[in-house]
């Protein structure tokens, strides 16, 4: 099954071979997990969002107009599902642990705590403080390494607006981390 193209797997599902969908799941679950975890800051929430996203993709498989590019189509669904979950997180007030506090406790000058050398963790916590639209744009551009045109097609946001979001995200990251690590 792994040797089949996306289009072949989709055709098999639509013909009634439901288990062929597992081939698509295996192919994309880890890539989607990275984005969802970075976006939502929680493996549990990411898992939940991706279960919903893959089910939406399965239900709407007939609407995948370009089966050879199933991945891009799926990614669009994942992005939308993560937006929904991020919104729920805000309502629940359960998103990330207090990121500034966590960063400050970890590395604040004079802290009695052992300095935290988890570079990725610090950046993730700083990232978590960004507004979700800026975080999403930054992740898609610089972590998933999509072009602005690809992101625009996926999100429906104009290229100029995306560039502004990414710039603001970079500024926000710089400001947040600069405050913590200022000499």
């Amino acid at each position, binding site marked *: 099954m792994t040797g089949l193209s996306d289009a072949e797997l989709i055709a098999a599902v*639509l013909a*009634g071979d439901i*288990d062929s969908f597992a081939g698509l799941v295996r192919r994309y679950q880890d890539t989607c997990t990275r984005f969802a975890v970075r976006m939502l800051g929680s493996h549990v929430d990411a898992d939940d969002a991706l279960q919903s996203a893959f*089910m939406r993709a399965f239900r709407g498989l*007939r609407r995948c107009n370009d089966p050879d590019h199933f991945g891009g189509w799926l990614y669009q669904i994942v992005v939308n599902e993560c937006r929904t979950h991020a919104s729920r997180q805000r309502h629940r007030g359960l998103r990330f642990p207090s990121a500034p506090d966590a960063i400050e406790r970890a*590395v604040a000058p004079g802290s009695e705590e052992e300095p*935290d050398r988890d570079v990725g963790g610090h950046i993730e916590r700083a990232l978590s403080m960004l507004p979700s639209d800026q975080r999403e744009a*930054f992740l898609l551009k610089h972590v998933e390494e999509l072009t602005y045109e690809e992101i625009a097609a996926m999100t429906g946001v104009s290229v100029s607006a995306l560039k502004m979001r990414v710039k603001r995200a970079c500024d926000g990251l710089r400001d947040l981390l600069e405050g913590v690590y*200022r000499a």
Partner: protein
Amino acid sequence: MTAFETYWKGFIVPENYDQKTESEEAAFADRIAEPLRAPERAHPSFEKRLMERVRMEGAVLYPQPSPGNGSWWRHEWVIRLSARSGIAIAAGIGAIIALSGIAVGSRISARSQGSSPLAQATTVRDTVQLVRFVFVDSGAASVALVGDFNEWTRGATELKRSGAPGVWTVSVALTPGRHEYAFIINGSQWVADPLALRSSDDFGTESSVIRIGTAAQSTT
């Protein structure tokens, strides 16, 4: 100095940050993004849990053809046009769809207009159009409509008994353009118009297709 401070101060806080070039900003973003690009793995049970849900819905969404019987629905269902459909047209409700089985194969538009559209729209152009779906089956206990307009969600659009024996109807507001749909009978049987399916579906599957046009356009 922590590893992070070293990592950070090397490139992030230049005095002239505001004057930095686009390439410098890109380099900054790239350095920040680098640890975020570390791979993540889905939970080991992710696929299993997902596929359980997929299999539950898949039998209805993407049924396998019956072996040795190329068109299972031809023998399973005979769907005919309700007389109430004509009443609906006269009342100006809007477009009416009559799903027709091969065995009987009647369509309101074909009969009344001398053409072969699946549906006929008579509403004001550039507006959402109210489309009435009519399904006739005296043995059905429930009839649901699924389509791209409700994201193929079972239970989102249930047909109701119209009063006449075996006649189920629902009206749905559709935007102009192409829409796909099908009926689910008794929660499990997928029924679609075979002609619309063959002429319109990219994958040769069972969906029906309706094109909602403007007042000046007949629908197909």
